[in-house]
């Protein structure tokens, strides 16, 4: 697949390395005008290409690996319909308190700003140290929840995530992304597919009985 990653920080470089190792074609964009991105990519992610977002072509998936407050403000000059995975966590230490995400998923806030893209909440639940672990995908495949309003986008994200050595679990529409975010039951722990599914089950039931959950996608 051709993967484009915005943000060459801790998470972006770790995901890029896993994606290159999985045989994907990876382009990565740092902060526009940041001269150091080329060196970061050369040393941290041999095999990936540093390229500004405006020069990306024929992407299968984009990943937006920047702090959430920045994700809210940057332009997204991607082909309409591009599948974008949002791994951001709204964490006050970095983002400050933002009213945009009161009681909703970061991905819903991003989707409201860029409705022409197909948004997927995922890759946010584990720390970059966990994702760096070389035994992932060999000894164990940690579960990774996926929330999206588009079945097609959820599928594309699942294929990518499985290739990274993780076990994709599609949990529902974008609004269920909060279950995967800080404060949600699936955030921050390495779980198996079965454990994640059971953990989310009661929460899903509760949401469903309140009638806030639309059609499940998977």
């Amino acid at each position, binding site marked *: 697949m051709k993967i484009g990653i915005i943000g*060459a920080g*801790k998470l972006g470089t770790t995901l890029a390395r896993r994606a290159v190792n999985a045989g994907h074609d990876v382009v990565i964009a740092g902060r526009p005008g940041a001269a*150091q991105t080329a*060196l970061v990519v050369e040393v941290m992610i041999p095999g990936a290409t540093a390229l500004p977002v405006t020069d990306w072509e024929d992407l299968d998936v984009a990943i937006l690996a920047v702090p959430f407050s920045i994700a809210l403000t940057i332009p997204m000059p991607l082909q309409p319909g591009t599948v974008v995975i949002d791994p951001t966590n709204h964490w006050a230490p970095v983002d*400050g308190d933002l009213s945009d995400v009161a009681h909703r998923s970061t991905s819903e806030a991003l989707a409201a700003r860029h409705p022409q893209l197909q948004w997927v909440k995922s890759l946010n639940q584990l*720390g970059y140290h966990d994702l760096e672990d070389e035994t992932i995908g060999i000894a164990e495949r940690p579960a990774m929840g996926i929330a999206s309003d588009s079945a097609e986008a959820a599928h594309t994200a699942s294929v990518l995530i499985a290739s990274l050595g993780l076990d994709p679990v599609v949990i529902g529409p974008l609004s269920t992304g909060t279950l995967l975010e800080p404060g949600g039951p699936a955030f921050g722990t390495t779980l198996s597919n079965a454990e994640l599914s059971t953990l989310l089950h009661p929460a899903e039931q509760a949401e469903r009985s309140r009638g806030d959950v639309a059609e499940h996608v998977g």
Partner: protein
Amino acid sequence: MELGVYSFGDLGHDRTSKAAGRRLDALIRQAQAADEAGLDMFALGEHHRPDFAVSAPEVVLAAIAATTRRIRLTTSVIVLSTVDPVRLMEQFGTLDQISHGRTEITVGRGAFPESYSLFGYDIRDYEALFDENVRLLIQLRDDPAKPWQGRFRSALRDVHTGPRPAQQKLPIWIGVGGTPQSAVRAGMLGQPMFLSLFAGPRSGVRLVELYRRAGTQAGHDPASLRLATGGHMYVGRTSQGAREEFYPHYSHYLSLHPSFAGGMPRHVYDQWIANGLLVGSPQQIIDGIMTHRELLGVDRFVGQFDPGMPESLADGSLELYLTEVLPVIKAETRTSEPAATEVAS
């Protein structure tokens, strides 16, 4: 190789001002013990939260400076995005005089948001603030009379900052927590880098290469690109005993982090130890620190000696570190000491 300890003076469950007072007394006493045992570094980092006793590390370090003789004093870290570099230089110039040239400053972007609203900054500027302030701080050290114009503070022209430090060049270390761009900046600035590693030294290999490449590309002498690592540490008498004694305190301590809001799961703890978190017998800690040296070529290791621990447990761990780890690391690294670790004082 140099060895040190650092602390934030975290308070655990008792957050009264009495408890904070006791914690500060203990830190001063522990620094004296470290000094007497010949430890190289004692460091304190600022937090502005009810669960930490150290918000003004320079004040506590001044008390330590007055009652110690050889140990060098630094921060771990100063959140440089939210302090005025002019004020900082004056404080640490003063501290360097009081300590007779034993002072350093370690600056970073910080891990918590409180200082931004407390001191009137916008957290969204955290990166730009840090970048501007670190350049000003270095200029104030190297060329204090040079005029300054920046984005976040009033311009400086014909100003006096003093007292000047006792050392000709007060060391300024750049604290890095894992963001590649921060390692590049430390290298480009040609300043020593303090890298905190919570999941073992392996995750630092590429960052250290990035730091050294950026530094040499910018034309800095490789000998000026000194490297220190740090992380959480607990030394117990036995391997299994250490794991059990430390776990409940560490789990509670890490519940500060959103990933571990309910405490740290035991299997994650065991995995971190397998990856190199320094929890174990003195011999295991020695091996762990030597792995930092072998994989990363560090000149200095500084461990957080008391995260989440009651005073007696921290004292026990510190004593083992001073009596059983320090002499062995000193002996093992004496012959292979890189020339760059000589510190002018």
